């Protein structure tokens, strides 16, 4: 039971509201429902349709802190950064029309990367819906394909139940975004309370129970496999399975390769870790998958950036696919053993079955894979991740190495999408889950800076670094003001090559060096820009100054932007061209 908030006696009624003084307003009920869900942080931007809610939010400012962003996309990415750093549900509040449409990129990003957020959007009053009213847009329609669920709330008395269910949906099963669209008159209307703790949601999504027999068959297949690989994804972080996974992999000495979203789910520098797989994955990881006889897919969705050409992906492997979302299983690859369920539950069952087996059987299983490890070590020696150094130009890979060294591998890193993102994935060995917060599925430029702000808010004692490109930085750099306003001392490393680097690389490699519209060298002075916002600006142009400049920036107490002028035409290697496979990998 939760104590009910005292109901304020209405003095004046809002012009668009219900005039009957019979209970709290929709806005009050919304705030109380959010508090009931444990919300103490909201990222948002006000506007006409959410005025009632902002009025109430001001009264509730001792219970919920609102962070005023500079663009709604920033608000959603901050909520994502907050959610990804902690596993808690991130909350966003924006107005109708452009407020909602600006939020859509973030919502789609959260959907692709299974991030739990609840986005509350204002809507025009009920009687104006469908009339092309000022700042009206069909938010529920626009967001429908990129949410777990969304609501248009028509009765204030529904609000408590809707909020309850929205949070449940956002964090249960495969997490994701939920949108609650609230017309202005609904937030003003007075209605009877529905008791928060008695709201029933008859539609609750249950995690599928794990099928014991399938688990036994899966473990038997793993023990018998000669060339198994554990292919892990974002599901490890979402199910909190990293420790169980590590214990399981170590017990059977199994090679592990993470996807971009799986990075940190298993320590990158662990001897069993082969590094990331896929388009820009390591040679060893991609060869191991190509040659494997058993692919154990844990919390992954067989994204095309991982598989390349499906028909020839892991051609000799049986596939065991464990995922909490049954629709992920069989979507791109038909597994020989589907296992719908929570990854951690499955791994715990594997471990308990292993304990029941005699130690001799386990030892033999490990022994039979020694030849496999020999093969893998050969690939690792043959083509380690590498880059050529330079005396005059800063190499982006060395920036990441230096960052790793200066932060002792402990920083929380956010990124945008593109070359810098891949260099982070390749050259910063992550040690723990939720340490890399990146836009994986949607590939959103401009994600890194606001995501860092949200993560910093959730983790005030940790060093949070956004590694971004000069392109992505300019898409959301206005959120520097938010970081300054709330004293969130994020560090932003701008990998500045004056190009949209990844597009340029593709044009160089696959379009005969026709550099079509990728030159963005006309840009503001990022040091001055930082200073204009009230942040500290740093610049490194020569390899000799990289270490000291970076160190000074990381040690700066407040928000810092480092403009790092990197070698202009650096490429990300290895690369498996789109629609190809490991054997077509270009390593240098």
């Amino acid at each position, binding site marked *: 039971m939760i104590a009910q908030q005292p109901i304020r006696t209405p003095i004046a009624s809002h012009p668009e509201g219900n005039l009957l003084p019979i209970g709290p307003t929709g806005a009050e009920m919304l705030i109380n429902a959010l508090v009931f869900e444990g919300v103490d942080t909201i990222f948002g931007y006000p506007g006409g349709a959410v005025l009632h809610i902002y009025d109430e939010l001001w009264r509730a400012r001792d219970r919920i802190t609102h962070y005023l962003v500079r663009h709604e996309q920033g608000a959603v990415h901050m909520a994502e950064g907050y959610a990804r750093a902690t596993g808690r549900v991130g909350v966003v509040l924006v107005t109708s029309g452009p407020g909602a449409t600006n939020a859509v990129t973030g919502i789609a990003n959260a959907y692709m990367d299974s991030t739990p957020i609840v986005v509350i959007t204002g809507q025009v009053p009920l009687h104006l819906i469908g009339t092309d009213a000022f700042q009206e847009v069909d938010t*529920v*329609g626009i967001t*429908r*394909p990129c949410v*777990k*669920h969304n609501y*248009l709330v028509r009765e204030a008395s529904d609000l408590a139940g809707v909020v309850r*269910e929205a949070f449940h*949906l956002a964090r249960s099963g495969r997490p994701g975004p939920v949108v609650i669209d609230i017309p202005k008159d609904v937030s003003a209307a007075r209605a009877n309370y529905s008791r928060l703790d008695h709201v029933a949601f008859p*539609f609750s*999504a249950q995690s599928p129970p794990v099928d014991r027999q399938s688990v036994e068959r899966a473990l038997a297949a793993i023990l018998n496999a000669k060339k198994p690989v554990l292919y892990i994804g974002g599901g490890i972080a979402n199910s909190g399975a990293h420790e169980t996974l590590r214990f399981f992999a170590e017990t059977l000495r199994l090679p592990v390769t993470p996807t971009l979203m799986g990075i940190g789910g298993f320590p990158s520098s662990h001897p069993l870790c082969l590094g990331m797989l896929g388009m820009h994955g390591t040679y060893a990881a991609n060869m191991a998958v190509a040659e494997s006889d058993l692919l154990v897919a844990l919390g992954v969705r067989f994204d095309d950036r991982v598989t390349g050409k499906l028909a020839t992906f892991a051609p000799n492997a049986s596939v065991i696919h464990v995922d909490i*979302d*049954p*629709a992920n*299983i*069989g*979507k791109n690859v*038909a597994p020989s053993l589907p296992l719908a369920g929570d990854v951690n539950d499955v791994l715990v069952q594997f471990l308990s079955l292993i304990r029941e087996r005699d130690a001799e059987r386990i030892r033999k299983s490990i022994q039979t894979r020694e030849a496999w490890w020999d093969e893998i070590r050969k690939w690792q020696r043959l083509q380690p991740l590498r880059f050529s150094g330079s005396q005059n130009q800063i190499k982006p890979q060395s920036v990441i190495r230096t960052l790793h060294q200066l932060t002792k591998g402990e920083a929380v890193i956010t990124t945008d999408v593109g070359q810098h993102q891949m260099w982070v994935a390749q050259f910063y060995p992550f040690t723990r889950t939720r340490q890399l917060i990146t836009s994986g599925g949607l590939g959103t430029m401009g994600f890194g800076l606001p995501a860092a702000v949200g993560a910093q808010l959730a983790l005030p004692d940790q060093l949070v670094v956004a590694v971004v490109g000069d392109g992505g930085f300019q898409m959301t750099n206005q959120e520097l003001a938010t970081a300054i306003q709330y004293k969130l001392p994020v560090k932003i490393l701008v990998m500045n090559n004056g190009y949209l680097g990844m597009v340029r690389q593709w044009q160089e490699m696959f379009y005969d060096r026709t550099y079509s519209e990728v030159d963005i060298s006309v840009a503001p002075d990022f040091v001055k820009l930082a200073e204009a916002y009230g942040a500290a600006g740093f610049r490194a142009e020569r390899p000799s100054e990289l270490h000291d400049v970076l160190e000074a920036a990381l040690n700066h107490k407040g928000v810092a932007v480092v403009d790092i002028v990197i070698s202009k035409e650096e490429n990300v290697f290895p690369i498996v061209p789109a629609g190809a496979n490991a054997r077509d990998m270009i390593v240098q």
Partner: protein
Amino acid sequence: MRHTLSIVVADEPGELSRIVGLFSARGFNIETLSVGETLDRRWSRVTIVTSGDDRTIQQIVKQCERLARVREVQDVTTSPHIEREMVLITVSADAGAARQEVLSLVSVFRAKVVDISHTQLIVEASGNKEKVDTFIELLRPIGVTDITRTGYIAINRLAASNDHHLERMLS
């Protein structure tokens, strides 16, 4: 292969478009679609005829099951079932031989004449896909000027009557 899916979804605004949107977003095909309430008015039944290989159909079922307000998705085609569609057909047929031909086809197909003028008739027929398609094909040379089809509805057969002969006798 052709499959008939029966989807039970909460009768709330926007739920149908969620299902239809899912089909178009993921590139699934809708051949026919019909919606109506169930015994419990809080729930609607959406019947969709779609086509695809077994894996595609499985994906469609699983994707529909992910929707928060979908209670149940059943591939009716996998077990004995009865499937019906109704059609209204406007036929141009003056009094005379043409009209007699229409009327005799109506009688053979156990259809009904529901409207008539000097030059045209509207006939109503229902049945499974083969019956409705054949009826339209036979009327076409006489002069079909318009048709409206409801899309298929389907229901599983009773356990005791899983017998194709019985279905023929009763239809």
